[in-house]
């Protein structure tokens, strides 16, 4: 049903339609509205049968989901940032055991310094864990991806996290066609576990595996991910057929057919980028956009096809590998090995810094003029950076960096409005 609704609420309702049996979560900004909404639906009986468990930490949250899933129940949880890192042992455990848990990751920066706003550093921290990572561009896609996520997870026995930008999507009120229960029921059959804790047919789950077999067990996890890569387009097609709209898939392309320059990104910033690209197109510049929806497994062939003809690729990403460079752009560059395009990285939006149309326009102009360096930090205040570096060079006891920078910003911004 078409609603003007907060992103968190849309996701909660989509998840509820998936009939999760055990929901467990620990509150963390900006995921709270999702879990509160699901909890309320369980309490009111709207979502039933479902056990909603308030746990004492994120580590407990995913652990409860692990136990529930191993016992054959459809399990769901949600977290962000610090919470994800607190449960990271369990993240790897769930993937290693092949448990089809679905989790919403309300993308938020990871500290220190502590920051509650959106970027992708949390998702990047677990990209090698074996979880499927799907990135939503809009709240519509966020809602839809959860439905597809349960299907993928259970078919292939692999946990799936749906990434949606914290605050930017979770707290935005926009038009969403919230999936209807009958359609979700038609799309998502009841959970048939591959392995289950059942006294009638006892098995041992979670045995120790030594050097003689570990590589094989891990390879099988890799094979599962490759199977996911095969399956995602088909699941997206089935979804489109049933629900009448496209959501998900491996990548999305916009005006790439004749593009010299293609901008690549994950998540909600794609919308802002498309607006900026349209403006450049009006000036005759041939620029396109590729959104990567399935970040893990990384759709190398699809990316290669979408980007192979371009002259230059600008990867705009909300995370980076400290001391090195881009994360997404490294994956993109690897996918394009042997092909023409030059890949440059623009790190933007860290810690929730708004990515403005004007700044993006500047990037596109530089791209057209071939002026973009390999690595750009968008809207970086170099003066502030220089001050701190000089301070550190001048004295040993220079103090906490974050505090120094904040003080500098305030003093620079001080003065009457």
């Amino acid at each position, binding site marked *: 049903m078409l609603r003007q609704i907060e992103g968190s609420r849309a996701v909660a309702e989509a998840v509820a339609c998936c009939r999760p049996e055990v929901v467990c979560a620990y509150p963390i900004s900006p995921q709270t509205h999702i879990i509160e909404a699901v909890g309320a639906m369980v309490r009111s009986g709207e979502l039933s*049968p479902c056990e909603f*468990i308030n746990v*004492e930490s994120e580590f407990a949250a995913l652990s409860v989901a692990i136990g529930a*899933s191993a016992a054959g*129940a459809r399990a769901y949880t949600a977290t962000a940032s610090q919470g994800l890192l607190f449960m990271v042992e369990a993240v790897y455990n769930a993937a290693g055991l092949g448990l089809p848990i679905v989790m919403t990751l309300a993308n938020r920066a990871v500290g220190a310094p502590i920051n509650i706003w959106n970027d992708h550093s949390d998702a990047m921290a677990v990209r090698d864990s074996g979880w499927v990572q799907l990135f939503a561009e809009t709240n519509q896609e966020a809602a839809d991806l959860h439905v597809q996520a349960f299907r993928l997870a259970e078919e292939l026995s692999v946990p799936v996290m749906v990434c949606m930008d914290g605050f930017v999507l979770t707290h935005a009120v926009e038009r969403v066609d919230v999936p209807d229960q009958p359609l979700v029921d038609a799309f998502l059959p009841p959970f048939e576990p591959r392995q289950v804790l059942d006294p009638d047919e006892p098995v041992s789950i*979670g*045995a*120790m595996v030594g050097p003689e077999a570990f590589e094989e067990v891990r390879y099988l996890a890799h094979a599962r991910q490759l199977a996911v890569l095969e399956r995602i387009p088909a699941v997206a097609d089935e979804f489109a057929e049933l629900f009448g709209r496209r959501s998900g898939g491996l990548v999305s392309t916009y005006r790439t057919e004749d593009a010299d320059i293609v901008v690549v990104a994950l998540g909600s910033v794609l919308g802002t980028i498309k607006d900026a690209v349209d403006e450049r197109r009006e000036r005759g510049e041939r620029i396109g956009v590729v959104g990567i929806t399935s970040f893990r497994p990384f759709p190398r062939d699809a990316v290669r096809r979408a980007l192979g003809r371009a002259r230059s690729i600008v990867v705009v990403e909300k995370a980076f590998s400290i001391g090195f460079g881009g994360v997404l752009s490294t994956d993109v560059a690897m996918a394009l090995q042997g092909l023409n395009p030059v890949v440059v990285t623009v790190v933007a939006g860290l810690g929730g810094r708004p990515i403005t149309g004007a700044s993006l326009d500047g990037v596109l102009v530089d791209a057209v003029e071939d002026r973009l360096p390999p690595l750009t930090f968008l809207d970086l205040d170099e003066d502030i950076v220089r001050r701190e570096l000089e301070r550190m060079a001048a004295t040993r006891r220079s103090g906490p960096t974050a505090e120094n920078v904040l003080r500098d910003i305030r003093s620079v911004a001080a003065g009457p409005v």
Partner: protein
Amino acid sequence: MPEPLPTADDPTDVDGRVHFYQVGSFAVGNRLLDRSLRTVQSDIGRTNSLDAGHRACRGCGEALGARYTLDAAMRAVEGRLVAVNATGCLEVFSTPYPESSWRIAWMHSLFGNAPAVATGVAAAMRVKGRSDVRVVAQAGDGGTVDIGFGCLSGMFERNDDVLFVCYDNEAYMNTGVQRSAATPPAARTATTEAFGLEPGAPFGQGKDLPRLAMAHGIPYVATATVADLHDLEAKVRRAMAIRGARYLHVLVPCPLGWGSEPGDTVKIARLAKETGLFPVFEAEGGKVTHAAQIRRREPVESYLRLQSRFRHLFGEHGRPDLVARIQAIADANIATYRLLEATADTTGGQS
């Protein structure tokens, strides 16, 4: 004419009050008991939840404790049971790839999350309308008292329907005998070596998990040892008859980590109780309801001398002062839990 021996059908034929002793032990010979009073372990039809073929050390108390506990639990719920195991000796020696010695539905996730995983299993059973299937979570002292404590407290607070069993061998044994918060004062471990001003583990305030469990007000808390099989099985049975969060703390001597003879495991467990160092009791809703009386009190020395982790307290450079402090702990336990109410023979021990 010798007196008629008691028969299997009527073991109380003699004087109406019979004590059974076998050589050096207080164990009752099961064959002399009425069938209905015999232990699960004595029944050839027992589950053997932890079956033969596991890789535990000779004399491992935990292997005994786990089999006793789970077989009793399986009997109590007629096989409708799932076990969740934390990382540790038990998990490692019971599932050496590609084998598993578990005959029951069993899961191992991580070190610190057994209580939470068990909560999840119980929730799944409930939501699927299979609340008849019960859940036992088990861990060593490390996985309970240290790294698992957060999750355990959460499980207690929610009163989740899980029986949590701690097999306490008083250190991180699987990784090479490092101290845990359950390591007793003066015990030598690899991270509390037996030298210095206070050799071995410090005389701190300890971390009394049974009392912490009681402080959460959960329905049932009990302690037991592998020396008294009847007692342990009865407590498991009692626990499984209750719904909600339950906690069972079982002392399981570790010959390797404690430096004791493999054949002394049961004896040492018994001495832990008889010295007063390990009070054996039950509590409901936060209050002690029963404490097993000390039958024949022993000085702590008779317990300590059997373990080389306390060797440094004796001999030429011995520390009688530390032994005295340990004795004081035992004395305090006896007073607190009233372990000598029956005023049986008090041979040995200092008052």
